[in-house]
């Protein structure tokens, strides 16, 4: 039992566990202390000091986020001394900040702006420094823009990139007045090990790190009468979007989202979940083929474990960090890119539209998908497969711009041809989901029976632990798969690249050996993606995860191979999984990249 500590905050007594910070203790009393450098996902930095409070009898004001409580402590969070000092800190931050808020992408969603508004920082006491400094704006990446003039050097991004992603593309360079957030030799983000995951964007309190937005491009495409504009929506968008538009975290807004997209003027509203289902058939077949090659043919050129390839942040990470494992990656494109390649071939044919007149837009919880769509490999339809990728946040902006009252929208259904999906497709949005969806299908292909889990819910692969393992035993397979009789399929799941690193190191050192691993670059999987609503926290991600699994349970079909449109696609166009045509359109190659 941990010891309890008695203290008072603003005169109210309370008892909390040892090692609680003043900030956490105040939260228990619903007293909000403003913070900037503090973030629930990250270790304590204590560098901005905006969270100062007064401890009665102590001269120096402690930082609430970094100071643990002690017995008998009397804390004041709103004394005159606290207010003045807090106001001073905010003014100082603003004096070196390019605070032309009306020209900032984060206008209305910036923690510094909110504080300045709360504290009514109207008369600037300090000189305005940005004019005297030579700040850089890095716009080279197709995913992320970094504007140093809006940076308050809270270092959340640096901690995010190190602690959540284990990438450390960003660092704090120089010191004092010259201190800045930078990369190796101040290269553009596009030229270093950055994976474009956007977690730093998700954790930046200001407009210093933002996604590169393609909102105007999409509006232009919609306005062009010659163009047939198709939109696809990733699984995690439907359980995140609501947060930007007046709903609580964990709200499922699928039908309203579809309705909003139709009102925005898209010609067809289709679903990435459809190609998620397709991915399962392609990747499941690939897995079984590899197992056969390794176990039966003893082929030395086939590699296990097979690693999933849906997360473009993970792909770029492995290209930089573990290029020797590129043969382990599934050759399957991500669902977004499969969709793109099919829209300008199969869909165009079915709808009798010239693919040159199709604009394909995707709504993603992800910033790395912007980079992925831009990869030179992604032109297998003969055109750029996906023209514009916008995030959940950008979609919310468009909905607001269009004057759509989201909360009042009716629920509508996806359009036909690549609009059908199953519960297996939707769980792609949560860590472990691809694994679960693949097992639901692969197990049935091999044994002819459903996976032996209640309601098809393979709970061992679910959850928020950084690395999870599961073993699936195969019994009484169909004759074709008799070599798998009694086999135990060892699977592992990692989310957040820092955990992917652990997983890869355990494979590399020979400590672990698996048949199949799923990796998602972002914490919680796509539901915690770098393009999802801000803020994010473990609690918010938990709620989004529950929403994903609820969405799965409510789907009439729960297994990818039951998706009728996928069945039709194979019958009428692709022939069978991993066919030559499927290979051409749905599979890809990877490139080794410089580690540093």
């Amino acid at each position: 039992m941990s010891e309890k500590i008695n203290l008072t905050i603003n005169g109210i007594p309370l008892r909390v566990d040892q090692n609680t910070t003043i900030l956490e203790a105040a939260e228990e009393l619903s007293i909000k202390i403003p913070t900037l450098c503090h973030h629930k996902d990250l270790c304590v930095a204590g560098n901005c000091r905006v969270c100062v409070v007064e401890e009665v009898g102590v001269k120096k004001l402690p930082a609430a986020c970094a100071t643990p409580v002690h017995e008998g402590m009397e804390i004041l969070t709103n004394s005159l001394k606290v207010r003045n000092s807090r106001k001073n800190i905010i003014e100082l931050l603003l004096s070196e900040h390019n605070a032309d808020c009306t020209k900032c992408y984060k206008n209305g969603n910036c923690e510094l702006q909110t504080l300045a508004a709360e504290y009514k920082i109207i008369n600037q006491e300090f000189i305005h420094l940005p004019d005297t400094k030579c700040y850089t704006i890095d716009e080279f990446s197709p995913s992320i823009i970094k504007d140093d003039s809006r940076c308050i050097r809270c270092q959340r991004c640096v901690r995010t990139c190190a602690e959540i992603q284990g990438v450390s593309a960003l660092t704090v360079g120089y010191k004092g007045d010259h201190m800045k957030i930078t990369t190796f030799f101040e290269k553009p983000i596009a030229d270093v090990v950055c994976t474009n995951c956007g977690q730093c964007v998700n954790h930046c309190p200001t407009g210093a790190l933002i996604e590169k937005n393609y909102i105007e491009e999409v509006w232009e495409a919609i306005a062009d009468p010659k163009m047939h504009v198709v939109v696809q929506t990733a699984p995690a968008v439907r359980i995140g979007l609501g947060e930007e538009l007046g709903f609580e975290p964990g709200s499922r807004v699928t039908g309203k989202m579809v309705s909003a997209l139709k009102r925005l003027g898209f010609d067809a509203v289709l679903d990435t979940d459809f190609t998620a289902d397709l991915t399962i058939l392609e990747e499941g077949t690939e897995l079984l083929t590899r197992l056969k090659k390794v176990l039966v043919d003893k082929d030395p050129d086939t590699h296990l474990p097979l690693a999933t390839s849906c997360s473009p942040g993970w792909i770029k990470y492995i290209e930089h960090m573990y290029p020797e494992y590129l043969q382990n990656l599934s050759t399957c494109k991500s669902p977004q890119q499969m969709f793109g390649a099919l829209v300008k071939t199969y869909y165009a044919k079915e709808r009798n539209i010239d693919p040159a007149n199709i604009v394909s837009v995707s709504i993603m919880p992800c910033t790395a998908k912007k980079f992925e769509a831009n990869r030179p490999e992604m032109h297998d339809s003969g055109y750029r497969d996906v023209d514009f990728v916008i995030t959940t946040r950008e979609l919310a902006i468009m909905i607001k711009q269009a004057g759509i009252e989201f909360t009042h929208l009716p629920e509508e259904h996806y359009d036909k041809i690549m609009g059908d999906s199953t519960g297996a497709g939707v769980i792609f949005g949560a860590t472990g989901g691809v694994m679960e969806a693949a097992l639901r299908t692969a197990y049935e292909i091999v044994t002819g029976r459903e996976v032996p889990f209640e309601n098809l819910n393979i709970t061992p692969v679910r959850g928020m632990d950084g690395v999870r393992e599961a073993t699936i035993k195969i019994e009484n397979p169909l004759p074709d798969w008799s070599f798998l009789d009694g086999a135990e399929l060892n699977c592992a799941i990692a989310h957040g690249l820092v955990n992917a690193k652990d997983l890869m190191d355990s494979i590399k050192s020979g400590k672990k050996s698996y048949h199949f691993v799923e990796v998602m670059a972002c914490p919680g999987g796509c539901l915690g993606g770098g393009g999802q609503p801000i803020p994010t926290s473990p609690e918010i991600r938990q709620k989004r995860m529950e929403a994903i699994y609820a969405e799965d349970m409510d789907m009439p079909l729960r297994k990818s191979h039951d998706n009728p449109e996928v069945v039709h696609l194979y019958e009428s166009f692709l022939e069978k999984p991993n066919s030559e045509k499927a290979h051409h359109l749905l599979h890809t190659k990877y490139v080794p990249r410089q580690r540093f």
Partner: protein
Amino acid sequence: MPKIKLAEKTINIVKEICAKYDNNEGELINVLHNVQAKLGYLPAEVQELIAKELNSSVAKVYGVVTFYSFFTMTPMGEFPISICMGTACYVRGAEQVLDEFKRQLKLEIGKTTEDGKFSISCLRCVGACGLAPVVMVGEKVYGRVSPQQVRKIIAEYQDGCPSS
């Protein structure tokens, strides 16, 4: 940033130093210190190698290198000029001497002239306070230097080696 290929010898020096510190990331500062002592400076390629050996990130290494003004990323000049900024030298006008060097060579602290001849750095007390202010060019020590002497000192090295 042009890529230089590190010489085999340099690679080995760096690797040895990292190994001496058990390739431990926590020893980064010591490693950088030792490597700079051997190589004179820390170019990008050396930082990359150190990051690799210590299994750290290059950005982190770069962050540390830029944080401490002691570390330099440009090679020292053929004739490195060091000006003592210890208390004794300082009160006896080291700063004016430094300014004069900077002015004459059109050079900032930590930088090297384009022809690679001169670089300027500051030192803390070199233990010759009796001679303050003290300037060193390479190994050679100049005592009681006044700003007026600066031109003469530079001239000594201007055309190749000093006439010693």
